[in-house]
């Protein structure tokens, strides 16, 4: 998306331009909604979207463009609201960068190919949901929202290396969880 155009939409929205706000909302509401749902549950989606855009409109005194991209700025606000909701549930773990788990379970994971699409989605979604918030966040932003690492680092307010490390750890945890799912499904078939 055109960043200059995004910044103009943001500025015009703050001045009360309905058309600009509608366009800005159309571009980003779905992504913010999905991020909120993955982080806090379905019931939080609407609330987080509303609070995020209200916060943007509440900053109508601001005329400067955000330091990061508009997407990063909006997701940053959404994340702040999400963290408030999660409270103590969001505790950053030590990023050990331990990928060994994925090596152990990667063989089992390829069996996902044998599941139906619906089964796969349900299994992976459940696995993502069970990740600790700090890792789930990395997966949601980088894998599900397809946000670039640099942009995700801006939203998460951490170095790019930390994003990579959390993502790697999250994927390793997913592999472990999904291998168990596959084992169950396989046993059921037999």
């Amino acid at each position: 998306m055109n960043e200059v155009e995004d910044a103009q939409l943001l500025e015009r929205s703050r001045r009360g331009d309905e058309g600009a706000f509608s366009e800005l909302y159309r571009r980003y509401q779905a992504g913010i909604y999905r991020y909120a749902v993955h982080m806090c549950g379905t019931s939080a989606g609407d609330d987080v979207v509303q609070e995020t855009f209200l916060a943007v409109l509440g900053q109508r005194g601001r005329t400067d463009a955000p330091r990061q991209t508009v997407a990063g700025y909006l997701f940053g606000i959404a994340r702040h609201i999400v963290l408030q909701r999660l409270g103590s549930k969001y505790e950053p773990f030590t990023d050990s960068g331990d990928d060994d788990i994925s090596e152990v379970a990667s063989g089992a994971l390829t069996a996902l190919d044998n599941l139906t699409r619906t089964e796969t989605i349900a299994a992976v979604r459940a696995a993502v949901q069970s990740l600790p918030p700090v890792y789930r966040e990395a997966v949601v932003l980088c894998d599900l929202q397809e946000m670039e690492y640099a942009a995700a680092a801006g939203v998460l307010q951490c170095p790019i290396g930390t994003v990579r490390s959390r993502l790697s750890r999250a994927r390793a945890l997913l592999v472990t969880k999904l291998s168990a799912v596959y084992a169950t499904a396989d046993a059921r078939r037999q």
Partner: protein
Amino acid sequence: MKESDGRRSLDTALRAIAEDEAQLGASVGIEVRLLAEVRNIAVARRRRMVIVVCAAAAVVLLALWIGSQRFLPSRSSEARVAEVTTDFMPLAYSSVPSTNVQVVRLAVPRAALVAFGLTPPEPLERASADTVLADVLVGDDGLARAVRFVRPAADQEQMP
């Protein structure tokens, strides 16, 4: 199976979730509520603009008014314009030289007008029936040098 195959399977599965959720979004009511907020902002902004414009216009008008007041005659000169006076008429000590002469306004008997050969006008008010106003030129020695008679402009046509 290789690890890369496992990774690819996970990537594929995550992409499937992303595709599955592509249509998800906030309910329509949220956008309606937010658009109402945007409209409120627009209304408040217009209101602020009107107030600012009115305030600016008021300041400009005030400045213009203050500027125009400088070129208007003062209240005292206005009062003077509203009066009709005779010429100064010399009195007995008019020939006595004086360095500093002041004008003193007095109420003098109407008979004084007659003494100078002037016809007294009809009085405007009962209280001033027996007197008329006169400006007397008084020197620093206390001697009166000249006198003129004063009356309001309303009586102008009656002033000789």
